[in-house]
């Protein structure tokens, strides 16, 4: 959180991009976008563009990493070299290693791992265009890919962040808000059980501000959850228009 006096984040008390304090950027999710992967999904979240692919359950290599009673969920968060303003050197850095670990842990919580001893469920999250909030977008798209792969799960995980800019708590920080804001609190949330499976924070927040941030994020997670389910429904439900439904009804009668 590099505070910078010169960068204006609020103008006349409003966010620069015109969003309300508790308003998300536009989010679009699509399930089943790749052929080779067992499951996949694509998300556009503001200017972020991410794709997730799931392979497995499959045999765990290296073998010493196998768990005898359960499957391991192994997420790999990776940024494309061209996804950021200054070219990112390909390969894992400390940041992506940490995010991969947190993502693995968050996703493992909802997967019925005990069904697949000694195996691994690989989740590959590729950031193709980055614009603040990629770990939350990554978590969100990864759980849609897991569902698309038919992995038994107790629920979908939703990622979302809130933060603070110019002493104002706001939902879903945009790029400048993230770079020059005062705090950022990304969470991973399991709507059905109301559990938090990922939580990080940097910057500074009062307890009241933290409460506000979490309230914003959790409400937003419910909203994103609907988009995730919608994406899966779009892929898997058979579409019938009104006339077709009427025809079917008549047929039954």
């Amino acid at each position, binding site marked *: 959180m590099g505070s910078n006096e010169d960068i204006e984040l609020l103008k006349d008390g409003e966010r620069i991009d015109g969003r309300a304090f508790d308003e998300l950027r536009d989010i679009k999710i699509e399930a089943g976008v*790749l052929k080779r992967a067992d499951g996949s999904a694509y998300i556009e979240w503001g200017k972020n563009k991410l794709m*997730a*692919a799931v392979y497995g359950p499959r045999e765990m290599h290296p073998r010493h990493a196998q768990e005898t009673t359960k499957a391991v969920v192994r997420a*790999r968060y*990776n940024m494309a070299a061209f996804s950021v*303003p200054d*070219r990112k050197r390909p390969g894992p850095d400390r940041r992506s290693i940490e995010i991969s670990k947190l993502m693995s842990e968050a996703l493992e919580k909802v997967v019925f791992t005990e069904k697949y001893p000694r195996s691994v469920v690989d989740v590959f999250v590729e950031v193709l265009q980055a614009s603040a909030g990629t770990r939350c977008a990554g978590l969100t798209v990864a759980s849609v890919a897991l569902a698309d792969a038919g992995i038994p799960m107790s629920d979908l995980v939703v990622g979302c962040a809130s933060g603070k800019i110019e002493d104002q708590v706001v939902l879903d920080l945009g790029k400048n808000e993230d770079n020059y804001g005062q705090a950022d609190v990304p969470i991973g949330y399991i709507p059905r059980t109301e559990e938090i499976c990922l939580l990080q924070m940097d910057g500074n927040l009062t307890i009241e501000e933290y409460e506000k941030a979490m309230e914003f994020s959790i409400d937003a997670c419910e909203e994103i959850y609907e988009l995730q389910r919608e994406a899966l429904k779009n892929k898997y439900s058979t579409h019938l228009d009104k006339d077709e439904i009427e025809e079917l009804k008549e047929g039954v009668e």
Partner: protein
Amino acid sequence: MKEILSNITKDYLYRLLKEGKRIDGRDLIEYRDLQIESDWTESAEGSARVRLGDTDVIVGIKMDVGEPFPDTPDKGVLTTAAELIPMASPEYESGPPGEDATELARVVDRGIRESGAVDTTELCIEEGEKAWVIFIDIHVLDFDGNLFDAAGIGAMTALIDADVPASDFDDAEEDEDYPLPIEHIVVPTTFTKIKDQIILDSQLEEEKIADARLTVTFNEEDEIVAMQKGLRGVFKYEDTMECIEKAKDIGEEMREKILDEVDRENI
């Protein structure tokens, strides 16, 4: 993780090819549906997403100010890298680029570099001191065969789409961004030999039983600018001539498709 093609599938493929047919119903010399989408991402200076059948590749161009190579002090620098990320196939693993990724990057690189597709002398800022470095990054999302053509077409499209980000750099010679100086539009065309049959644009199963591969890259002046033979099998001279003749025409068609997608003043 090595994927194995079942014998029954192999036999089926061989039998079809003998009759001059292919598993997806195409003619032996027929491309899959090719979709090119330029300017796919705004975080890159230039980009293109290419879908060739189910093969899906994104190429991004990034640029930076660096030092020219000592042996070409008056030229910009061009570097190509390919990542076969584990998203794209169960056979790909995380880690530094292996042989396949390296070959892919080098074949694409050669087509563009040796052909002078980009006028690198225009990219020198201060002789021997400062020059633009162009990074071509090939990111494979879904692997269903023929990465060479998908990546080559993607790289060419992304270069045409690219703007030199001069306004972001204090030490650039210009104040405003300008399109990359493009001299030629080069297009690779890749043939696969299976037993005695030569096919165009092999998909995954066909690549698994491929004996040899030949990539021929043409520019718009009907000149061959790069070739690469791959795999353990061999071609007869007549075979290579046949491929070259066809690559000339197919390259022309693909060039049209690229120009339909990105029509800019730099070409």
